[in-house]
């Protein structure tokens, strides 16, 4: 069996049975990364010697019967997650040489759970992007289609998990940034409920919409990781005290969902994308779920509201980068960041704040009400992730506005705080595609349960990418 193919679940089983060691697993992954990543650009930083030592230590602990939920499992973290002593750049020249003095809560939780951080993955700098192209560390290639984008901004994690460089890569989802690479890279991209996972130590993009997320190849892995990283954090006042379930244990429960199909989310779709999504919905019907047409009357305003709200918060969150205490000065910001900072600054400035920031905040309430009303009728909402399939590098780059519109199907869940997931479904013209499911707050169990039905039927995780050395 190929070690790099193992899911977290399989790895834990084999490690527990002493059929493999963490050192072997880590070596296999490191070799694979060394062989193929120079052509994929999924990592910005790869740890080497330290990781081998940590793997050996994990094996030792296992011998001594130490029990930790992720003991000896290599994980990748998106490079906007602070890792103490490990370079963290946010893929921007501003933080090119920054080595953090502290760990994000997320990194700490995984380390405490015994995981080994194999490296930091590539992203659209500061989280600004949905294609992965806004980085100075080489644009990641889609492992299934060289020359095509991976989706972003958690581009590197999406590519790394798809390429079988690791079984889990963390991400962040502010407007779709974790669900999108899930869809474009044939992996499971979870966006937890806002406040489910601590943001402490993750470079803030938009404080009221950032959701700390992860990508895996299977639903079980996604559910398992969530049960480890979720929970209240006294260092993050926006985290919830809501109980954390063992999400991976309820995948086999009897469940029949009413799935809402919003007509506004099926307008103007690429034909192939729509076909693939509708096929997946048929599978769900066969499995006993019911499809119900719903309406989200304010859907067309979601993107403008998102654009203003998130840009405003971005302009504020990037104000601390003045080069005095760390990093380089503001002259190192690239175009995309500068654009968003200026859009946000203008939206908040005197004379414009009422028209833009405040109006958007009011419209946000209407979007929340739309979802609340929908969830009184249905248990989940289903739709595509992107309106179009993966595109070639630079194809949509010239027009920033065009680029922004790829987020229209994902941004509402960020504005409302609802959890969502992208589940791998049939490819469109040999390019990966995902089914998006959205649930009420803290009902991630439903996402996993229904996603599992799709996974069980289509088994897209078995489709391997062909990589070039």
């Amino acid at each position, binding site marked *: 069996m190929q070690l790099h193919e193992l899911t977290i679940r399989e790895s834990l089983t084999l490690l527990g049975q002493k059929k493999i060691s963490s050192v072997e697993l880590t070596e296999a992954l490191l070799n694979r990364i060394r062989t193929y990543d120079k052509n994929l650009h999924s990592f910005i930083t790869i740890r080497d010697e330290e990781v081998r030592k940590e793997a050996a230590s994990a094996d030792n602990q296992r011998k001594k019967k130490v029990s930790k939920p992720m003991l000896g499992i290599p994980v990748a973290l998106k490079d906007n997650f602070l890792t103490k002593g490990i370079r963290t750049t946010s893929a921007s020249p501003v933080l090119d040489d*920054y*080595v953090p*003095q*502290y760990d994000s809560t997320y990194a700490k939780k995984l380390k405490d759970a015994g995981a080994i951080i194999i490296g930091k993955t590539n992203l659209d700098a500061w989280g600004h992007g949905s294609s992965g192209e806004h980085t100075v560390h080489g644009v990641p290639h889609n492992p299934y289609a060289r020359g095509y984008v991976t989706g972003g901004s958690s581009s590197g994690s999406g590519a790394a998990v798809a390429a079988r460089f690791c079984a889990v890569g963390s991400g962040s989802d502010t407007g779709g940034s974790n669900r999108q690479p899930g869809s474009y890279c044939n992996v499971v991209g979870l966006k937890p409920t*806002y*406040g489910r996972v601590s943001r402490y130590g993750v470079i803030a993009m938009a404080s*009221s919409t950032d959701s700390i997320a992860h990508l895996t190849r299977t639903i079980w892995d996604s559910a398992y990781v969530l049960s480890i990283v979720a929970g209240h954090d*006294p*260092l993050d*006042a*926006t985290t*919830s005290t809501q109980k954390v379930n063992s999400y991976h244990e309820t995948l086999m429960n009897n469940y029949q969902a009413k799935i809402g199909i919003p007509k506004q989310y099926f307008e103007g779709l690429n034909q192939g994308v729509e076909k693939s999504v509708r096929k997946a919905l048929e599978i769900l019907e066969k499995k006993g779920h019911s499809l119900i047409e719903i309406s989200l009357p*304010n859907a*067309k*305003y979601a993107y*403008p*509201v998102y*654009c*203003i709200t998130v840009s405003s918060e971005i*302009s504020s969150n990037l*104000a601390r980068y*003045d*080069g*005095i*205490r*760390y*990093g*380089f000065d*503001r*002259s190192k*910001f690239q175009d995309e960041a*500068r*654009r968003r*900072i*200026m*859009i946000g*600054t*203008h939206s908040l*400035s005197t004379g414009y704040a009422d*028209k*833009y920031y*405040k*109006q*958007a*905040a*009011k*419209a*946000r*309430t*209407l979007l*929340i009400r739309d979802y609340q009303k929908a969830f009184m009728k249905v248990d989940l909402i289903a739709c595509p992730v992107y309106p179009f399939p993966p595109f070639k590098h630079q194809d949509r780059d010239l027009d*920033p*506005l065009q680029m*922004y519109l790829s987020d229209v199907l994902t941004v509402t869940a960020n*504005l*409302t*705080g609802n959890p969502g997931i992208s589940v791998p479904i049939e490819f469109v013209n040999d390019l990966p595609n995902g089914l998006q499911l959205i649930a009420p*707050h803290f009902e991630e169990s439903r996402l996993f349960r229904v996603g599992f039905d799709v996974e069980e039927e289509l088994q897209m995780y078995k489709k391997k990418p062909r990589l070039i050395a």
Partner: protein
Amino acid sequence: MKKKKRSISPKDVRHVAKLALLKLKEGEVKKFSKQLSDVFEYVNQIGEIRTSNVPETTQVTNSTNRFREDKIDKGHMLLQEEALKESKQTYNGYFVVKAIFGEDDAAS
């Protein structure tokens, strides 16, 4: 040929860049004027949404009164070296910046 009046003029761009402490080169001002105008012309549609009597939502935690106790937390404090180590210029335990004009600024 009549020049299209941009909703975000070069003057607006310079003003906003100044507020945001971003230095733009002259050529960039024109580029951003066009790009920002396109964006704002698109987002202007939120003006048509009827929002009188609709309260603002600025966060989705659905919670209130999240406090901590007045206690010293040594565990998360940084040593002086740690606090300073990522700075490009320090002096005697201080961060260094370009001199700010005026002793008046030392006030408060």
